[in-house]
């Protein structure tokens, strides 16, 4: 087997039982790896109705066939589980160096089951797997955890861990690796915490086999050339990081401000990528096998702090969404999220929700928009589980519901929306609504075409054709997440580039259309998992504000999201019912026979 390592590791924390089994050809060729492989395992192994924070839930770490091969942007891994925040199937992926080192241990995936009796961490060195006590590190933040685990294992080991937030099963907690990179969304950190698992340390010596080295070199060169020629990947991201988008999105009036009450933030430039570069940047940082290097090592001299970030989503969520223009405070909030192990999008957005509730008189004594120190204090309270932090720790939807105003939560399926107001980017509205994991910009990054002109510029206000393009991008994205490559590669690379790399590595005759079909298969299986848990059209929606209330100013004013017509077309093109559930025949065509059988049985009854 070239590309894949050919085996899957399973650890039952209840019984402290470690086992392995081969990766089947069906798994590798129909689902690739990463997200796809995790979804396949979870659908097959997780019964309906499992509480995400119970020992019965599974937490899967997975690399892909391109991980560790040196293919451009291939330093990533995926975490797949059932989310405690959304109740949906969920995958979250992360860069840095952990993913490559995990693959080098010789495993394609790690399935974690049960719950350790006491706080533990895993030390995986090639075939050797050790479950160790985490007594010494329980309670530590992610930075200290990584340092201690490495001191107890190997200096070269790579560590993915949870912070205090994950330990306390905060629903918006993340898993952090390499101190500054996170599988951030959906509360995957809480699932790890629910298993009493503090960290996973990996160190491996197995290089993935590449079937055709000469062809791989040629394919990688062409892909790197594409990256070096695309304006986004050659200039914008390297020079200004992801926050280069702040001014761009603000100019089109789609930078969600004051919890999506506005789409234009007057002080956007104060928190932009340009200002980050000018004021706090120390150097650029790259993940494994990446030439884009969008990461920012930064400093806040006034607070005597160093870290990485903030990223676009953080400067948006703690900045514009909260009406805060203080870059140092935003950066501090971002550092704290990494240290506590919190999802910066959901944390910032939940604080913004609290601010709106407070200003509307629904949350007496709560924070107010524009209060820079409040965002820093609230992150600490959430991370420490103190005061109002305990309410915010459950995410914006539960917070807003508790105070009687769910409409103040800017979320889909309970997952907080990222920093693109779909009233100004209609395709993003459909992408958010139909995302299988809740509001996510990365399932189908329609902003790329609708705003940035990649691969070409399409009208951001029109709805024509958006269903079809959303589906294409969702399918391609699912395939990329299963390779596992960074989604920024997609600005420059096309499906043929990915297929050529995969063919060279695996010696399996994948063509671009095969990759798109694999993505479609993964998307449908995720959707069937969610349908099994009761999700349908009702959940494929957007916050009422986006459907009914136009933005008051800026270059996207007087428009709402025309979701229903796009959604009808989307379901039709997907081959799903009008309730958003895949039909048995659609699933059979995608070779998802078990899923097809399940759907046929359920709806026959």
């Amino acid at each position, binding site marked *: 087997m070239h590309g894949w390592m050919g085996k899957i590791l399973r650890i039952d924390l209840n019984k402290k039982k470690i086992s392995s089994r081969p990766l089947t050809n069906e798994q590798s060729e129909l689902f690739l790896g990463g997200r796809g492989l995790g979804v396949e395992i979870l659908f097959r192994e997780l019964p309906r109705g499992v509480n995400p924070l119970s020992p019965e839930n599974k937490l899967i770490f997975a690399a892909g066939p391109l991980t560790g091969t040196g293919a451009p942007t291939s330093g990533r891994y995926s975490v797949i589980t059932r989310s405690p925040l959304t109740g949906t199937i969920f995958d979250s992926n992360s860069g840095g160096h952990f993913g490559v080192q995990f693959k080098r241990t010789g495993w394609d995936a790690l399935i974690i089951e049960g719950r350790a009796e006491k706080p533990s961490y895993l030390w995986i060195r090639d075939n050797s797997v050790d479950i160790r006590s985490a007594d010494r590190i329980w309670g530590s933040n992610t930075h200290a955890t990584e340092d201690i685990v490495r001191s107890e294992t190997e200096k070269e080991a790579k560590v993915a861990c949870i912070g205090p937030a994950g330990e306390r099963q905060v629903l918006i907690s993340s898993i952090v690796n390499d101190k500054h990179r996170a599988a951030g969304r959906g509360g995957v950190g809480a699932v790890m915490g629910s298993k009493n698992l503090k960290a996973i340390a990996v160190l491996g010596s197995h290089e993935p086999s590449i079937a055709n080295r000469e062809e791989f070199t040629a394919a990688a060169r062409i892909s790197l050339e594409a990256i070096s*020629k695309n304006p986004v990947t050659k200039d914008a991201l390297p020079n200004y990081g992801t926050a280069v988008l702040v001014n761009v999105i603000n100019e089109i009036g789609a930078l969600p401000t004051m919890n999506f009450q506005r789409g234009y933030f007057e002080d956007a430039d104060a928190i932009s990528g340009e200002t980050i570069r000018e004021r706090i940047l120390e150097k650029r940082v790259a993940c494994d096998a990446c030439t884009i290097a969008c990461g920012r090592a930064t400093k806040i001299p006034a607070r005597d702090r160093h870290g990485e970030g903030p990223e676009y989503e953080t400067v948006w969520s703690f900045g514009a969404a909260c009406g805060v223009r203080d870059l140092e405070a935003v950066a501090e909030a971002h550092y704290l999220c990494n240290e506590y192990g919190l999802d910066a999008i959901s944390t910032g957005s939940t604080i913004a929700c609290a601010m709106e509730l407070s200003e509307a008189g629904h949350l007496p004594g709560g924070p107010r928009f524009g209060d820079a120190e409040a965002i820093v204090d609230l992150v600490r309270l959430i991370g420490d589980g103190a005061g109002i932090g305990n309410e915010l720790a459950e995410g914006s939807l539960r917070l807003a519901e508790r105070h009687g105003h769910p409409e103040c939560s800017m979320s889909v399926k309970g997952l907080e929306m990222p920093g693109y107001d779909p009233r100004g980017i209609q395709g993003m509205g459909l992408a958010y609504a139909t995302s299988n994991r809740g509001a996510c910009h990365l399932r189908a990054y329609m902003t790329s075409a609708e705003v940035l002109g990649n691969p*070409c510029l399409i*009208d951001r206000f029109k709805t024509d054709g958006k269903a079809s393009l959303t589906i294409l991008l969702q399918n391609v994205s699912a395939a990329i997440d299963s390779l596992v490559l960074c989604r920024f590669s997609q600005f420059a690379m*096309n499906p043929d580039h990915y297929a050529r790399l995969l063919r060279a590595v695996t010696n399996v005759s994948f063509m671009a259309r095969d990759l798109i079909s694999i993505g479609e298969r993964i998307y449908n299986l995720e959707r069937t998992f969610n349908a099994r848990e009761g999700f349908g059209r009702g959940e494929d929606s957007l916050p009422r504000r986006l459907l009914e209330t136009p933005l008051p100013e800026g270059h*996207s004013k007087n428009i709402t999201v025309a979701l229903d017509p796009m959604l009808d077309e989307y379901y039709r093109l997907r081959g799903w019912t009008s309730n958003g559930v895949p039909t048995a025949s659609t699933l059979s065509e995608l070779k998802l026979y078990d899923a097809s059988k399940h759907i046929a049985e359920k709806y026959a009854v």
Partner: protein
Amino acid sequence: MRIPSQSLREVAVRLDEEQVAGLIDHTELKPHVLKKKIRSLCDEADIHGFATVCLNSWWVREASQYLKSKSSRVGIASVVGFPLGQMSTESKAFETSDAIVNGATEIDMVINVGTLREMTTASGDESRRMRELVRDDVGAVVKKADGAPVKVILETGYLTDREIVEACRVCEEAGAAFVKTSTGFGPMGAYPAHLKLMRDTVDDRLGVKAAGGVTNFLEAIRCIYAAANSPSLLRPDKFRLGTSNGINIVNSLSWAKYDDSWFVEEVPCKICPSNYVSKQPLEVQTVYVRKCRTCPDNAYRKFKDF
């Protein structure tokens, strides 16, 4: 100008990456460019099968030697009188000879825009005299090109429709092989409306080159629709794309294969030169704005953000 989505699909379905690459002049005309960049431009053109590399005349010898050392079939287009076109005819002629001696296989010259405009605004003998000056300016370059195709850059952003038509006719009379929209340094790049006008004006033995602001496959396909919408015109001697984004265009073209929905009909104003008049001379701008006011699609302008 409206371009129905079905028409774009029909163009796209006829294209493949290799064919489009063969229509591209891979361009690098910035003043601060270094030798390393020229060589990598040549490498890229060779790998992707672009028609030519398009360079300032200073770099022709370097590119020629380098491409020869690779036994490459990529041609070299040298710009002449670039980017303003306001050099003497003699200096353009000399620059052409020099470029040809150094290995240029094609010449992209800039027309004398000011004289051209005087030609269309003057009358009688004065107009005829100006016409001769413009024709001789182009003719001198054609002569010194010694059989190499000469593309004449009209810089359409400075011209009214009438002036574009007249410019095309003069170029045809002077023996040019192509008429070309823009330098990339002028007030606007290649717009389908200009390209169609040029294509409709010149004889089929002449080619049309779109240059300036073409960055992705959709823009490229719009240009092809406007200026090369038949198999007999979709050839390197009848149509070219001048761009520094050739690799992006070819790479992005792959996406077109996997979904038709990229080709939704564009708001007409977005691809209309009358919407981008801010850098034009006032008297030209006035003509464009007047045209806009009488356009059947004028209603779109009321919604500024389209």
